[in-house]
């Protein structure tokens, strides 16, 4: 068996080991350097191509901070934020319902996921927007009565459409998180007399957070982008605002680039927020899960990369 050791390693007799201490030469990573240089060159070429291309960069610069665009971006942020809140709330609620002992509750939650995950968001947005065709008035007998078109504005329709759809996906994410928590946790909570709600809220959900934050961050980033679908129901988020501008001045690519910049900025902020939330919910867990993405090691430094968790104790 011993003789089958990997043949290409340099074999050395035990008597060759004369010193008690050796200087260690770290492995170099020439591949990282080469690919790094290649990427830099490619990026430079790309930048040059765009700089020489038929783009009026002054128009991009001008509209980057134009009021219509900023207001559109604010609307984008607003709708994404509240739709995410609705989504997370509904997701948690229906996840708990899906795990309920009560078969009726379970079925209702299943039905919700089945319908709203099974149809396109755009279609759901259009239905909410046109709901007045089905129910011309909204009535709570004796208390409230209004024309549906007045209540379900494009903003409300977008909020309902995006939020409820998101909730269906969140349900599955949260359910997976809850299922992953060891059953012993529930039993321990029971033996100190905690109620089902307390157990869920104080013991189970905080432990699922660590698992559901990454997919939730994914969703939040997705939401920021998907909110542009609301342009189909004439909600003036950023993309809609940009279109209105370029229909007039014809600077199509310029305005789309402006949107791209703002979207990237938004998603970057979300990434950073996610990093800190993950670190917070990772407390008490030994392994540091997330590493900042831009800390390349080229085999030069002697020290190992710092672990996120060392800072805690």
């Amino acid at each position, binding site marked *: 068996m011993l003789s089958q050791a990997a043949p290409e390693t340099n074999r050395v007799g035990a008597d060759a080991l004369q010193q008690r201490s050796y200087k260690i030469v770290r492995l170099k990573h020439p591949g990282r350097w080469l690919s790094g240089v290649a990427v830099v060159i490619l990026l430079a070429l790309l930048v040059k191509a765009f700089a020489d291309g038929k783009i009026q960069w002054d128009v991009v610069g001008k509209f980057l901070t134009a009021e219509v665009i900023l207001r559109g971006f604010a609307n984008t942020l607003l709708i994404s934020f509240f739709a995410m809140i609705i989504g997370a709330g509904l997701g948690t609620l229906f996840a708990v319902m899906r795990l309920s002992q009560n078969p009726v509750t379970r079925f209702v939650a299943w039905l919700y996921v089945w319908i709203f995950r099974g149809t396109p968001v755009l279609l759901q947005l259009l239905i909410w927007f046109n709901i007045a065709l089905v129910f011309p008035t909204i009535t709570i007998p004796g208390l409230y009565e209004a024309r549906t078109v007045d209540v379900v504005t494009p903003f409300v329709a977008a909020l309902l459409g995006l939020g409820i759809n998101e909730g269906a996906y969140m349900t599955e994410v949260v359910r997976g998180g809850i299922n992953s928590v060891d059953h012993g946790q529930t039993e321990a909570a*029971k033996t100190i007399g905690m109620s089902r709600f307390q157990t869920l809220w104080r013991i189970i959900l905080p432990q699922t957070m660590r698992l559901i934050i990454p997919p939730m961050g994914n969703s939040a980033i997705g939401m920021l982008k998907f909110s542009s679908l609301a342009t189909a129901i004439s909600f003036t988020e950023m993309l809609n605002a940009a279109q209105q501008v370029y229909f007039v001045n014809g600077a199509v690519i310029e305005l789309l680039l402006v949107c791209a910049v703002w979207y990237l900025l938004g998603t970057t902020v979300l990434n950073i927020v996610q990093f800190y939330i993950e670190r917070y919910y990772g407390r008490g867990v030994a392994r540091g899960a997330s590493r900042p993405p831009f800390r390349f090691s080229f085999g030069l430094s002697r020290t190992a990369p710092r672990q996120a968790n060392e800072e805690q104790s």
Partner: protein
Amino acid sequence: MTTVVKAINIHKNFNGQAVLTGVDLDVSDGEVLCILGPSGGGKSTLLRCLNHLETLDDGVVWIDGSIIGYELRDGGVLRELPPRKVRRQQREIGMVFQHFNLFPHMTALQNVIEGPVKVRREPRAAATARGKELLAAVGLGDRGGAYPSQLSGGQKQRVAIARALAMNPKVMLFDEPTSALDPELVGEVLDVMRKLAASGTTMIVVTHEIAFARDVADRVAIMVDGTIREIGPPSEVLANPQDPRVRSFLTRVLN
């Protein structure tokens, strides 16, 4: 001696498989009862029936004045209690698990005061003071701020004991509290349990630590195939067992 725990004719099946087949038990105030027996004999299931983590198929569990999980109605009928009332009963029965089941997102101290603060609604300051006392009593006065992942197995189990004690239980149930520990950590947990026994806590301990049972237990029960085959003072049961199944089990574990 006043009785604190009384179990009568406990039956429990899992999917048609009989796991407990008529267990009777009487534990008096301040007594330490150790339950030994071969794997699969139903020891864990018995403990879980005592604190209503499992429902019974027959029989009744009575702890310090109330029937666990039910109330006695006219005509000899046991009526299921609503969850709220069951929880009130459960919180007076301390349980220590083989795998600790500490809440990993809370520090040791937070684990200990969770029940007093959230369940018994004690003021946080008072609960914290008492929590620190309890941690000191299990030898962890300086580790209150540590998360479970930063504690050794023995330390985790001692925190778990403190957490159970924080609810002022009428009886403490231990399910193989040292089985998941490295051998050199077993002693520190058993020492805490010894102190607890000496302080007059009523304890039911499922364990494989024969030496602990011999030294600390007032009585030892041997459970085989879902019933208690033999029960009595350790000097009698361990030295001179009558039942053949018990004798073969003991010769295996004593040698």
